[in-house]
Structures are given as structure tokens and as C-alpha cells.
């Protein structure tokens, strides 16, 4: 039995007046066919549970729902409570979020599971038998069935809830955070259960914030952000190939077994639900987006088919209205057609006299991405980084920076959008400059030094966790430690708010403790500002901790270029294997 949401809007009236409405769901269209499981992911407050409740018409009285919810073809939005009674549990069942109070504390769990069967006219003994076998199926130990909800563990309670939903064998199953409180082993068993239900022809709506659970049992995934679907994608691409900046940020926040990179939350603060009650005219994710451009704050984005280098919403269908997720590759709601490419390097080569340093190197760097360039000394990684920054001219090939040829961009203009942190802070800051003068230098160069620059420099220092008092500002490089100096260098690189930060072996001069702190700082700043980062290092161990993607350079060629965890887990090129082997302490 299919479940379909058609242009569903849900608003919560807050104080009675029609203006004080908080939008929980905005024009949601999802179709779940029989034998299909669709998952919905998103941060807390994104409207996931509202969607679950709407599917059962269980919304609070303050909610105003428009649009359609079709349960097996019947629009339930117009049904009366008594009509709903016949549909609920028989045709569509829900597994509620596992809070302490979802089960009735004064009834034994077996009785609670058997209750709908008995209500439907089945004999008590057969209902209890079926309930017991259902508990067996869900791996609840024998003898627990006669206990009361407070006597069993949270994980068991979760499965009891699942049993209650499955016992009536409904055509549609709505699961709201079914694995939030269960251990990993149980989780994988529940995934098996869900898959069996899907195979049996059920339509399953899975609501979860556990991203690793999504590919285990659903085929499609909808990414919900404060009431709007931002991306709809095949589940197996969720962790590896998200196309919306929000999906990527969500994936980066999620701890995954194979991923070594430090976790980073979605930058910025969630929007207020009230801010969008009356016809919004910007992309809802725009304030937190890493790649917003002018149009993002001017009009709502449209859904565009997923795929690399989308056309940026041109000709796309109206705000997810025409898309219900049935497209195979899904869609992304973004003016820029999903994560945009910031830099694309095409077949560049560079020689110094007769020495070939780079040969036919091609590479892309996405907006908001951290790419590590790894290679041994002399492999050409620094040359590649500076070629990208526009300070070294390649002999052949071309580099596009946001679609423009780097060679066509004014050097000063390009320099403003690229910040560089060098290897040795002692050498990269003039010994004649005070901390203040060093950080002010880019402002002087770009004629931006004015009365407010003092405050700007002080806040830059606070951002890199250094003191901002007059005494510190007047210190000279030789009075600072390597770590402090590198922070000053980072502040200098970021003072013009660049879009790309190149860290050229920025931490290799520092001792492990200082290096850890500086890396942490770089990552935090990258996440907070949403900038792209090119991390040049010879240390693949550092690279795997900081980068989304690793490109390995060997003899002037890129021999490996893949998501960081994949490069580490299954390197393809012998050189990468050797690098990882050596880094692990082997031969």
C-alpha cells in the first residue's frame, strides 16, 4: 500500500493569532511505493516527527495542515476521527520515538502488543500467542513479555514499540527514530527486520538521524531542513556523494567508523521557525550555506536533478512541487545545483628548466571542501598549490576559479580570495613587523586599512585564540612561540575573508601538541567560515584527520584522488599503499 505526501504544509499556531505561525513543513511531496523504504534525515527540529505524525493524522490541535496525505490512495486529511480509527494500525502503523512515556506503565507489554488484535475481534489467547511470536521475532528474551515497560531496557522497549506496529501487519509502516536508543548489534537486526517488511511489500517511512542506518534499509533518502526537503538522493550516496551543502555538513557531523576526519557540526545557528511564516523569498539554508551567492538571498531555489555541475536551478521545477522523489537520481534544491565546484584544474603542467614538476594534473576543489594534497618532498604539491593560487603560471592547461580562467583574473583580486598559511611562521612574517603590522599587511596591500581595521585585527586575533591587548599587538615575532606565530599567520591569511585557504605544510614545523591545536583551529575556522581549504602536507596521517578528500601526488602526477576514508581504507595505487604502510610504521 503506497504512502504519498502531496504538497503538504503544516503550521503550528502559537498564540492564536494567525500571524504567529511556525512553519513545520513546507510544501513536502514524497511518494513511497509498496515494497519501498524511504528515509527522512535532518537535524532536530527539522520537522521529521511532524511528518510522521501527519501521516497518521495525529498532529496536535494547534497544527494547521494543508495539502494531501494519501494512504493507499485515500486522502486522510479530510477523514473524520472515526474513519481514521479504522485506518490507523490496520493500514498504517507508527513506531513512536522511544520516550519513557509512550507505553502504558500499568499494563504488561504483551497485553499492550495484543491490544489492537483483541480490539479487532481476535480471541485473547491467539492474540497473545501472536504477540509472543512477534516478540520472539524481534529477539526479546523469553519471559520478558510479562514484564511492565519500566522493567525492561530502553532497547527492548524500542523493539516492543516495533512489535506493536508490526502485529497488525499494516501496509504502511512509519518508523520515527527506531534505532535512537538501541545498540549496534540490535540496530543491524532491526535493519534486517525492516528489510524483511519492505520485501513483504510494505511501504516504509523511516525517520532517523542515524545516517549510517539509512543505507542499510532504505533505497531513497530525503534530507529535511526546517520543513523543506533540500535533497532527495539514493541512500547509498548519502555518506559518500551528497550534493547539497547541507547534506554534506550533516554527513560531516556524523561519526562514521571508517572516517577519521574530526567531526564538525553544521555551521551557524538553525533558523527561527517564525521567520518563514509569511512567504519567504530566499533559500532557507542560505545563512548557513558555504557557497551562497547573491541570488540565494533573493529567491527560493528550485529543485534540479542531481548530478555533477548542475545547471543551477535554471529550468528546474518549482520548489520540489513537481518532484516527489521518484526520479532515480533524486534532486537537489539549490540555486547552484548542489555543491559547486570552486576550482577546476585541467591538464596543467609545469617545468622548471628541464625539470618536469607537474605533468597533466587535473583536479577539482568544491566549495566548502577540504582537499589534502599529499606527496613526498619534490612531488610538486607546493607548485600545484601555488599554481592554483595563481602565483605560479603553468606551462600548459588551464585553471578555472568559479568558472573564470585564473589567468584572466586580476592578480590582486585573486590574491584577495586566496589566503595562504606557510610552513614556517618565523620566515613568513617579517622580523620588522609587530603582530599588529603583520596582520594589517594584507589590509595595507589591498588599501582596506582604515579606522575600523584595529577592531578587525583584534577580532581576528580572538578568532585564532590569541590575546588582543595592546601589549600583545606590539610584540615582535621573536618574542612569540612557533604556535603563537602560526596563529598570527593564520589570522593574517584570514583577515581579508578569503574563500580559499591554502595551508602549505602549515603544521609540520610544530610539535605534536601545538600541531594538534593549530589543526583543530584551522578546521574550526574552516567550518565556521565555510571556506574551501587546500591542505598541502607530506603527512598522510595528518591528511586523513583533516580532509574530506585526499589527492596523492607522485612524480608530478595525481595517482589517487578519492574521499579520504576510501583512500585510507582501500588505496589503489602502489605509491599510496606504500605511503600508508610507512605512516603506519611498517616498511
Amino acid at each position, binding site marked *: 500500500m503506497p504512502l504519498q505526501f502531496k504538497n503538504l504544509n503544516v503550521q503550528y499556531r502559537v498564540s492564536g493569532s494567525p500571524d504567529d505561525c511556525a512553519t513545520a513543513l513546507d510544501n513536502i511531496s514524497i511518494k513511497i511505493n509498496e515494497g519501498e523504504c524511504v528515509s527522512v534525515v535532518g537535524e532536530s527540529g527539522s520537522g521529521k516527527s511532524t511528518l510522521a505524525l501527519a501521516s497518521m493524522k495525529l498532529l496536535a490541535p494547534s497544527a494547521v495542515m494543508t495539502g494531501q496525505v494519501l494512504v493507499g490512495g485515500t486522502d486522510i486529511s479530510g477523514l473524520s476521527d472515526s474513519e481514521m480509527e479504522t485506518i490507523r494500525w490496520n493500514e498504517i502503523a507508527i513506531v513512536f520515538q522511544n520516550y519513557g512515556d509512550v507505553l502504558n506503565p500499568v499494563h504488561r507489554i504483551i497485553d499492550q502488543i495484543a491490544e489492537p488484535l483483541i480490539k479487532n475481534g481476535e480471541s485473547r489467547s491467539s492474540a497473545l500467542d501472536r504477540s509472543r511470536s512477534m516478540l520472539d521475532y524481534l529477539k526479546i528474551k523469553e519471559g520478558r513479555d510479562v514484564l511492565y515497560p519500566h522493567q525492561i531496557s530502553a532497547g527492548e522497549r524500542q523493539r516492543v514499540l516495533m512489535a506493536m506496529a508490526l502485529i497488525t501487519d499494516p501496509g504502511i509502516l512509519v518508523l520515527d527514530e527506531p534505532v535512537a536508543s538501541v545498540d549496534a548489534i540490535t540496530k543491524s537486526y532491526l535493519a534486517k527486520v525492516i528489510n524483511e517488511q519492505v520485501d513483504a511489500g510494505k511501504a516504509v517511512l523511516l525517520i532517523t538521524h542515524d545516517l549510517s542506518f539509512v543505507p542499510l534499509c532504505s533505497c531513497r533518502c530525503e534530507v529535511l531542513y526546517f520543513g523543506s526537503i533540500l535533497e532527495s538522493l539514493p541512500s547509498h550516496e548519502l555518506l559518500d556523494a551528497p550534493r547539497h551543502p547541507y547534506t554534506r555538513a550533516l554527513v560531516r557531523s556524523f561519526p562514521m567508523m571508517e572516517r577519521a576526519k574530526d567531526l564538525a557540526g553544521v555551521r551557524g545557528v538553525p533558523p527561527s521557525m517564525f521567520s518563514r511564516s509569511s512567504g519567504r523569498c530566499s533559500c532557507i539554508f542560505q545563512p548557513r550555506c558555504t557557497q551562497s551567492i547573491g541570488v540565494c538571498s533573493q529567491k527560493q531555489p528550485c529543485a534540479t536533478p542531481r548530478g555533477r555541475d548542475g545547471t543551477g536551478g535554471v529550468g528546474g521545477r518549482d520548489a520540489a512541487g513537481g518532484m516527489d522523489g521518484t526520479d532515480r537520481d533524486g534532486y537537489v534544491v539549490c540555486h547552484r545545483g548542489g555543491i559547486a565546484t570552486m576550482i577546476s584544474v585541467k591538464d596543467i603542467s609545469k617545468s622548471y628548466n628541464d625539470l618536469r614538476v607537474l605533468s597533466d594534473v587535473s583536479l577539482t576543489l568544491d566549495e566548502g571542501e577540504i582537499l589534502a594534497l599529499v606527496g613526498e618532498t619534490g612531488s610538486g604539491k607546493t607548485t600545484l598549490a*601555488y599554481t592554483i*593560487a595563481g*602565483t605560479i603560471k603553468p606551462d600548459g592547461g588551464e585553471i578555472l576559479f568559479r568558472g573564470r580562467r585564473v589567468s584572466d583574473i586580476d*592578480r*590582486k*583580486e*585573486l*590574491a*584577495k580570495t*586566496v589566503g*595562504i598559511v*606557510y610552513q*614556517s611562521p618565523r*620566515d*613568513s*612574517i*617579517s*622580523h*620588522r613587523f609587530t603582530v599588529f603590522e603583520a596582520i594589517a*599587511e*594584507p589590509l*595595507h*596591500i*589591498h588599501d582596506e586599512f582604515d579606522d575600523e581595521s584595529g577592531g578587525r585585527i583584534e577580532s581576528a586575533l580572538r578568532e585564532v585564540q590569541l590575546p588582543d591587548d595592546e601589549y600583545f599587538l606590539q610584540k*615582535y*615575532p*621573536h*618574542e612569540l612561540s612557533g604556535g603563537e606565530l602560526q596563529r598570527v599567520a593564520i589570522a593574517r591569511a584570514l583577515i581579508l575573508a578569503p574563500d580559499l585557504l591554502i595551508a602549505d605544510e602549515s603544521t609540520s614545523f610544530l610539535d605534536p601538541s601545538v600541531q594538534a591545536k593549530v589543526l583543530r583551529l584551522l578546521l574550526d575556522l574552516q567550518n565556521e567560515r565555510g571556506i574551501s581549504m587546500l591542505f598541502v602536507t607530506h603527512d598522510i596521517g595528518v591528511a586523513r584527520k583533516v580532509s574530506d578528500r585526499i589527492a596523492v601526488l607522485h612524480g608530478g602526477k595525481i595517482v589517487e584522488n578519492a574521499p579520504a576514508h576510501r583512500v585510507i581504507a582501500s588505496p589503489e595505487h602502489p605509491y599510496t599503499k606504500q605511503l600508508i604502510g610507512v605512516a603506519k610504521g611498517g616498511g
Partner: protein
Amino acid sequence: MHIKPFKEFKKDKIGVAGLMLILLLITTAILAPVIAPHDPWDYSAPAFQPPSWEHPLGTNDIGYDIYSELVWSLRTSILFGIAVAAIACTIGLVLGVSAALIGGMYDMVVMRIADALLAIPTIMILILIAAYFKPSTTVLIIALSLVLWQTTARGVRAQTLSLKTKLYVKAAKNAGAPTSYIMYRHVMPELFPLYAMGFVTKARIAVFMEAGLSFLGIFDPTTKSLGIMMSYAMRYLYLDVWFNWLLPPVIALSLLIISLGFISYAIEEIFDPRLRRNNATPI
């Protein structure tokens, strides 16, 4: 290591002594028209007068006041020294920096000229020029400047080349800085020690050279000069005038050269870490 040159200089006793001395001499030279009691180009008393209140150092063979001559000669020497030093160092700075920045053929030509000048004895060129052209003071200043720039140019070129490779210069360049900014903010301050050293050394050479040339009689004879004074005094040594006629210009010249020597010694010690006795005070 960052050095505050003026603060360091103040701590250097020899440097301060040299500076005081040169300031005293410069003041005397500037105030020459006021200090000199008589017109040094005019007869003021009978010849060979011994020192008196009227003529502190007596008069010379044609009745000119020796003290007035001395003060005016000092003025010539100092002017000559400063002018030559300024011109030669500026030529050296411009040629050195441009050679380093432009490089290529230009660099090679400039540096080969400098090498040639180093090899040829300066004094010989000057004697030839002076003997042949009978030049004015201005021409001589220019001539001397043209043969003294090479050491500064070489030093400046080497320093600029090394600065070009400094990471903080590259960083400024990568940040979009134009060459003018890099010159003004990064290169010039680094070249200051070279310029200062070159200036003092060249002033010393110029002062001595002027005295030497005029002593040899290859200088405008109408100019008042310590060398000319000495040269005339030598002719009348049998009259026992050495203490009031020969000695004063010798002492004045020596003081001038010693003061410049002290200053150059102090500058060298401040900027050359190997010569530093005690560590520079930070800030």
C-alpha cells in the same frame, strides 16, 4: 632578530662619541660665516703674524687669517664628503636594487662595470681627470661619486637577491602586493644598514680624497681646503709656523676622519651579529 638601530646606537659609547664630534664639526662648518672673524679670501693683516686675540691662529704668507681659513676649509671638506657619499650611495642603491630586480643582461653589465671600477685605482683616475680638465668642485664631486658607488651596489644587489627569496616577501607578493609596496615596506628597511655603512665609509674616503687632491694641487685653488692649507704651510715650515698653520688643518682633518670612523664602527657592530659583544635588547 629584530634590531632597533637607534636604541642600539645610543648604547654604543664610541658611536656616540663619533656622533658628538661630527655634529660639533658640522655645526662649526655650518656656522662658518658667523664664527670666522675675517674674510678668508681677503688680506686682513700683515703676513706671518703669530697667534693673537685678533687672529687666533695668526696669518699666512699673504696675510689671510688662518683660523677663518680653517673654518671655511672644514666646511668644504664636510660638504664634499656628504655630497659624494649621498650621490655615490644613491647610485649604488639604484643600480644594485635594479640589477637584482631586473636581472639578465642589465644585471651583468652593471656588475661588470662595478668590478672594473673596483680593479682600477680611483686616485689615479681622479688625478688624471683633475690634471686634464682642471675641474670645479661640483665636477670633482660627481667624478668621485661615479667611481665610489660600486661597493654599495654590490652589497645592495646581494642583499636584494636574498630578500627576494625570503618567505615574508613572497607572502606579501602572494597577497597581491605590487613591487612598489615590497620595495618600500620590505626591501628598503632591510637595505638601510648597507646604506648607512656605505654613506659613512664613502664620506670618509671623500673627505680624505679631497684633502689629498688639494694637497697635491689638483683642486680648485680658489676653494678653501684643508689640503691646500697643509700644502702651503709645508712650504714655510722653516719659519716655524707648523704649530699654528700646519697642525690645525691636520687636527681638523683627523678629527673628521676619526669621527666618521667611530660612527662606521658602531654601525657595523649594531648590524653585524658576529661583532656584537652583548645581545641586542629586544624592542
